[in-house]
């Protein structure tokens, strides 16, 4: 890792140059006004020092309103530019392109557990290929953490109980700091890691290495272990909404509302099933809170995403960022 002294961290993502450009604009404005006030104060203090023979007769009052208006409106205009430019970039930072590599992140005191779709797991390190957009889906097992990569200029708090997402596209191979940026207890400053950005070939080799169980296969095991099929895939038991093709499907709730079944909805349905009830069904699903951890939920969601809808169901709606999970029909 580059440990030489510098003023700006190396730019290693598509966002970094854009953020730095806005920063330099702000620096220029701030430097200008700081120098302006500093110079004016020093100049006035010197020129009008006690005892200096200089004309101090008061200026006409007309200038008063012009000055007040000027130094109200110019700062207002400049701050609105900062607001607008920042807002535009903020939007871009939060709207990933449609074809991201999706990776799950589980934060816990005091480590980062990374789960790749193909099954590779990492602790405190994240291997990704250069020049491809990556989207992280993150959750914490305990307290609030924050995933921060200074070289990418991105940061997102990682919360317990709820997914947050973060996307970026690295532009340069190398190793970059990963820091936890939300104080989380004793070893907060040791909850750090490395983002390893590799060239495509190297990354492909790294992915192959080691025996891995894919997320979907692990999810299937859990699906069987907890007997989800008893209710959800049993033609003799129409008590429960069918799960084939559920991901991305439009769902109507019993209170009339509708939603698209995304990762957060599936997670909530497993841990807090009575929170939302599908129209036409009863609230009879038991909760799996305490029995399935967040890692297991990631795997179950990967499995559910892989299920093809049966022929007589409408196709799932197009959801951005579905990632490249392999679709395998694992049940007959």
């Amino acid at each position: 890792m580059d440990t030489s002294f510098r003023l700006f961290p190396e730019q290693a993502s598509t966002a970094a140059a854009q953020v730095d450009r806005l920063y330099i604009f702000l620096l220029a404005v701030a430097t200008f006004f700081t120098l302006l006030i500093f110079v004016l104060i020093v100049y006035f203090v010197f020129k009008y020092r006690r005892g200096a023979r200089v004309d101090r007769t008061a200026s006409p009052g007309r200038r008063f309103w012009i000055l007040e208006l000027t130094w109200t409106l110019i700062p207002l205009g400049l701050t609105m530019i900062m607001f607008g430019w920042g807002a535009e970039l903020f939007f871009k930072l939060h709207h990933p392109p449609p074809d991201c590599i999706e990776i799950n992140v589980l934060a816990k005191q005091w480590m980062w557990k990374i789960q790749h779709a193909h099954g590779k797991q990492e602790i405190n390190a994240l291997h990704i290929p250069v020049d491809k957009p990556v989207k992280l889906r993150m959750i914490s097992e305990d307290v609030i953490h924050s995933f921060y990569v200074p070289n990418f200029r991105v940061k997102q708090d990682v919360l317990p109980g709820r997914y947050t997402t973060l996307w970026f596209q690295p532009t340069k191979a190398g190793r970059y700091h990963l820091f936890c940026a939300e104080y989380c207890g004793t070893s907060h400053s040791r909850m750090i890691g490395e983002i390893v950005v590799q060239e495509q070939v190297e990354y492909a080799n790294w992915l192959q290495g080691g025996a891995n169980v894919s997320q979907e296969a692990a999810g299937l095991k859990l699906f069987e272990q907890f007997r989800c099929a008893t209710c959800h895939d049993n033609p003799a038991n129409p008590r429960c909404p069918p799960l084939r093709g559920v991901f991305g499907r439009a769902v109507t709730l019993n209170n009339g509302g509708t939603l698209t079944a995304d990762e957060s909805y599936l997670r909530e349905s497993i841990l807090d099933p009575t929170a939302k009830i599908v129209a036409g069904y009863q609230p009879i699903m038991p909760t799996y809170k305490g029995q399935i951890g967040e890692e297991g939920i990631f795997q179950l969601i990967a499995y559910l995403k892989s299920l093809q809808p049966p022929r007589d169901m409408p196709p799932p709606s197009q959801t951005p960022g579905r990632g490249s999970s392999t679709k395998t029909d694992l049940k007959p």
Partner: protein
Amino acid sequence: MSKGELPKRHYLNANYNVWSWLLSTDHKRIAVLYMISLTMFFFVGGAAAILFRLELMTPQGDLVISETYNRLFTLHGVVMVFFFLIPSIPAVLGNFLLPMMIGARDLAFPRLNLLSWYLFMAGGVLAIAAIVGGGVDTGWTFYTPYSTTYANSQVMAMALGIFVAGFSSILTGLNFIVTTHTMRAPGMTWLRLPLFVWGQYATSIIFVLGTPVLAITLMLIALERGLGIGIFDPKLGGDPLLFQHLFWFYSHPAVYIMVLPTMAVISEIVPCFARKRIFGYSFIAFSSVAIAVLSFLVWGHHMFVSGQSLYAGLVFSFFSMLVAIPSAVKVFNWTATLYKGSISLETPMLYALGFIGLFTVGGLTGLFLATTAIDVHVHDTYFIVAHFHYIMVGGAVMGYLGGIHFWWPKMTGRMYPEMWGRVSAVIVFVGFNLTFFPQFLLGYLGMPRRYHVYAEEFQILNVMSSAGASILGLGYLIPLAYLLWSLKYGEIAGPNPWRATGLEWTTPSPPPTFNFDQTPIVTEEAYAYPPLTGAPADEKQFESVAS
């Protein structure tokens, strides 16, 4: 104007009995009680800073273990924010001067004022008990669910201490508002009030409206931590972001509680040492109120990356830009006051000019943070730490010290030694910049805050910062020494050593217990300094005593 002797009887020697101090309802004595207790808290918070700045000279954790480090920075934040900065100017200078500046004998509710001090002390004792009992390791921001479910430290005791001290703020704010409305002397219209009074008034609005939210938030922490009632911890059915909204709803206006009074002090010092009416009186007065109101609309700028919605983020960013404008207006008005003034650089003026420069930097860097896309990168880094220290230390503390020096002759009847005053002001200014400017660089480079150990490339800037902190500490110790010295050996000041305008300067120094023999009648605008022409004859009347 005879300045050879102190007045025979004044508020300090009216009675020497300990109970006459501890049960005093004289606003001036209560101000002195606050000044002593606040000074002690300042040095407790400062001691914690010395320790962790020492630790931060090396990337490894080699002075203290992480548990201790986390308690040190929490102690520093809690004590400095709740037990020094928030009360500081209102409780010391506001209490002492507000009635005098409006021509009153005391505040509207003198006994309530005494109760305020006792509530502050009770809260302070609880906080010290929490520290002595092992300390708190949550940061002064107490984010949940860490503070409610996971922290193994004295969260309850500390929360209780802050809760109790908060009522001190609320009562002081109430007292100031009622006093300003109902006890102004004849002729003291709102637009003739010294800007110091406008500043305390605006601050009091925030005290009264904001502090109750903090009280409730602390109670909710106690309910979850003590009784397991799920409010913030998702495992109990709660929402961690709810805490952040509630906490920042108070704590953002709280930072304006820390800065509005200090701006008010600057508005008194600059006209006096420029011998000129302040430029843009009504703009500064209304800016104070505008800042107080707008301050309640921006809390979500602490939460841009928290998981809050994008759109909420944009609204908060927009209002955060707006709240900067009245502060900018004030800076320009203070600078314009210098134009064609007759300026001398006594200690209060050095602090005031230093304030203007450092507050400008602090305020401008606030704009960086209000800019959402930049905040994503620098949130929770040393950039934030640098920003708020520029405002709170470069701003608020320098204003406090400037005010203490400016009104020291009035409060004690004696002058401090001017040369030492000026030397300390310069040491503080230099030490401050050396401590905190490198932290802006550290922040953009990516060093997170609240880090006990850090990546080795950050060491050089950390060493610079720690070196600066030692100079800054020296700059604070020297005034402690000479101000105490001056109580016995300082030159007798007389009623108005600065030849300042303002009703407080028409009384003897120190003032009698009831301030004025007769209620003054006000016929002039504030800052009615005679017009300057530059003619040599004018200069003689402006010779200040401390040259």
